[in-house]
């Protein structure tokens, strides 16, 4: 399409030019060398040949090479830009993951600290409770021992008092008092007090 246009244009253009300038050239004889009609034909023929050759060389050989290099460069630059963008996105993702990991670690550490504190508190409470129980048991045992010792001591006081009363009656009254009677008399004196 384009090639046909161009060759048609060259042929038509040359024809138009020859006709137009030939008419003018005949009027002025041997003035300007540019208006010498005898030079028109070789000039037009060689112009057509050289310009057609140039057009062919440029459109088929030379310009595609330039276009290729420019396209390759543009692609390369776009590719680099795309890769840079990708790297940036990736870096951002890594940064976000890092921050998330940091936050997670902090939360976990806090939770573990709370757990450890709870555990320690619980252990301490248990130990305290165990110690309290032991103490209470020991105290009640001691109480029992004291009560027993006291009643034993009181029992001994009564028999001693009965013996003392019997001995005092013998010495003062000169009569023997039965040990059982003396004991009963002491118990009646003490009453329910001990």
């Amino acid at each position, binding site marked *: 399409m384009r090639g046909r246009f161009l060759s048609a244009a060259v042929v038509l253009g040359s024809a138009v030019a020859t006709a137009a300038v030939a008419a003018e050239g005949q009027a002025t004889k041997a003035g300007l060398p540019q208006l*010498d009609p005898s030079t028109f034909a070789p000039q037009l023929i060689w112009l057509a040949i050289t310009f057609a050759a140039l057009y062919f060389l440029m459109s088929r050989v030379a*310009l595609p090479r330039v276009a290729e290099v420019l396209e390759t460069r543009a692609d390369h630059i776009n590719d680099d830009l795309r890769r840079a963008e990708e790297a940036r996105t990736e870096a951002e993702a890594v940064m976000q993951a890092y921050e998330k990991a940091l936050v997670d670690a902090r939360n976990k550490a806090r939770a573990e600290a709370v757990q450890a504190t709870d555990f320690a508190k619980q252990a301490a409470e248990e130990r305290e409770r165990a110690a309290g129980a032991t103490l209470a048991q020991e105290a009640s045992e001691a109480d029992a021992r004291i009560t027993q010792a006291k009643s034993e001591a009181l029992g001994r006081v009564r028999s001693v008092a009965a013996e003392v009363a019997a001995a005092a009656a013998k010495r003062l009254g000169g009569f023997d008092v039965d040990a059982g009677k003396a004991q009963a008399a002491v118990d009646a004196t003490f009453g329910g007090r001990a």
Partner: protein
Amino acid sequence: MAGPLEQFEVKPLLPITVGTTDASFTNASLFMALAVALVTIFVVGGMRGRALIPGRWQAMTELAYEFVAGMVRDNVGSKGRQYFPFVFSLFMFVLFGNLLGMIPYSFTFTSHIIVTFALAAVVFVLVTAVALARHGLHFFSYFFPSGAPVATAPLIIPIEILSYLSRPVSLSIRLFANMMAGHTMLKVFAIFTVAMGVFGVLPLAVNVALIGFEILVAILQAYVFTILTCLYLHDAIHLH
């Protein structure tokens, strides 16, 4: 001494006749072929390394490519991509033709109206063909802007047609006249330099400045030729 216009004479180097037509390989043909060879070497040679990070030569080639590609993109639009090889060839051909002409004793093929007119005619025919292929008969609405009152049609339509038809004329004459005037002026001052003996340093100094100016004109006119081609292509693709 050679006159200021002698530099524009076309001299056959290798006489060739096809049928009755003179197809001689002339000095003009030589510089056209040279321009094609140099452009090809410039682009293909610059890209031979296909380096990711371009060297100096490759950077120049890429600069030329990006320059023309940007021109097509900005002035024609995204639909102009398929015409990029043509616009690039046109720009490089005119640019190298103009710059090769700055070498002393060389020949400037862009200083010949027949060459610039043929190039402009190629552009004109291509642009019209593109417009007709894209829009069919709707293309003719180009000659009457949609907003204008119908009563103005008898005035506007001839003006639009005339301005459309004068495009190849103005395009070719602009390039041809610029190149021819510049080179003639350089030669005139060069003749003064030789003729004035010791005082020839004055026209020589003028010529030094003129050469710098002419190099600017050589690049600028190649750019103007190309950007106008882009604008015409834009009109052809989008109409108004």
